[in-house]
């Protein structure tokens, strides 16, 4: 294994579409570039089997194939990748020191592209039954619920996509949503409402997940009537939104009330030399195409900042 050097022009934190696009631009601009990824290359989109709205693919492409191609492209231009968890960023003169689980790295500019992760509800039973009926990935685990009844929690694109995916396997899918209408896009809503297997529990929130060795049911509370009902299900698919991976950035860059990084149109954060791109930044529309766009903007801003 070749030794990985510690000093770079640019460090990119996060290997989803935003970070990969930034890496293509900085590496191609002949800036020495390091990508730090804590888990797996590709980000959230790897859970999507069919990306239908990324320009250039008339046939849907899987999230994993799309992002692996981006990584290959960036690596071809000279991007280096390490797998480590970033724990802090500290400015030191004109350098930024990035601390990780695998040691320190320094760079003139940092691009934050760490995205977001699935929000957990924190209700009783959720942690205990994860992997025992509670799932955060319908495409992974749907097949284990062949002919069983399941619940999907949430009303956005992720939730409705999961509910539709689950119709291939489950007997009945109950979507539990805290409002009386869906946030998901029209095309997904049409698919969900025409699916015979999908039912909706409106104005309802999950308050507990119960069972023995495995999930056997959920408790649902109506937000208007406060009435609690029990629903027997074998699986609970959580899709209640996302939280940005910005825990380590408090006090480093300015965050908004949602915890996302505040940027201007050049993707500059409140700290000189630190840029942000993709789902981690404030007001992101959370699409692959906007993430790759952000990545390019952040990379070009970083290049200008470095004066190279």
């Amino acid at each position, binding site marked *: 294994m070749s030794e990985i050097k510690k000093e770079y022009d640019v460090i990119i934190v996060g290997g989803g579409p935003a970070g990969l696009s930034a890496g293509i631009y900085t590496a191609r601009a002949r800036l020495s570039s390091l990508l730090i990824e804590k888990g*797996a290359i590709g980000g959230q989109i790897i859970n999507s089997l069919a990306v239908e709205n990324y320009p250039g693919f008339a046939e849907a492409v899987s999230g994993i194939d799309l992002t692996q191609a981006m990584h290959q492209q960036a690596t071809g231009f000279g991007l280096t990748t390490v797998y480590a968890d970033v724990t802090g960023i500290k400015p030191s003169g004109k350098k930024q020191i990035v601390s990780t689980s695998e040691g320190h790295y320094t760079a003139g500019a940092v691009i934050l592209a760490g995205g977001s992760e699935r929000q957990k509800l924190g209700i009783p039973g959720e942690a205990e039954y994860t*992997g025992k009926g509670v799932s955060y990935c319908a495409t*992974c685990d749907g097949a*284990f619920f062949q002919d069983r009844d399941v619940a999907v929690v949430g009303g956005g694109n992720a939730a409705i996509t999961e509910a539709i995916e689950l119709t291939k396997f489950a007997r009945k899918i109950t979507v539990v949503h805290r409002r009386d209408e869906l946030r998901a896009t029209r095309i997904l809503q049409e698919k969900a409402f025409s699916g015979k297997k999908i039912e909706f529990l409106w104005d309802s929130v999950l308050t507990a997940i119960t069972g023995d060795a495995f999930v056997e049911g959920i408790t649902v509370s109506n937000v208007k009537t406060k009435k609690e009902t029990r629903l027997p299900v074998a699986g609970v698919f959580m899709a209640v939104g996302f939280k940005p991976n910005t825990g380590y950035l408090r006090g480093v860059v300015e965050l908004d009330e949602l915890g996302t990084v505040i940027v201007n149109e050049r993707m500059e954060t409140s700290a000189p030399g630190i840029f942000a791109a993709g789902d981690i930044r404030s007001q992101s529309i959370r699409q692959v195409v906007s993430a790759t766009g952000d990545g390019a903007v952040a990379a070009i801003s970083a290049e200008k900042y470095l004066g190279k």
Partner: protein
Amino acid sequence: MSKPVEIEEATFKEKVLEAETPVLVDFWAPWCAPCRMVAPVVEELAEEYDGKVSFFKVNVDNNPRIAGQYGVMSIPTLILFKAGQPVTNVVGFRPKAELKKSLDAAL
């Protein structure tokens, strides 16, 4: 040489339950993206723990009975077997450092 080997129901007893060294089984399926992501990490672990732990993969699509027997309902699931008994399991994608920690704690 120490890459995880794919096994089926027919060989599970001999390779896993009757093994003398601890065995790590990676329950996976081709349509599961996090499984494809965890695979290279497990391959690296197989290299590092060569001689101490044997590594096998079980495709849950082809072997639903084994998956059912060990209560696998989310994939990827990694289960460590010692003397034929499951001693620890890890569900979902985890970074390598975390997997090593769970593995070392259980060994």
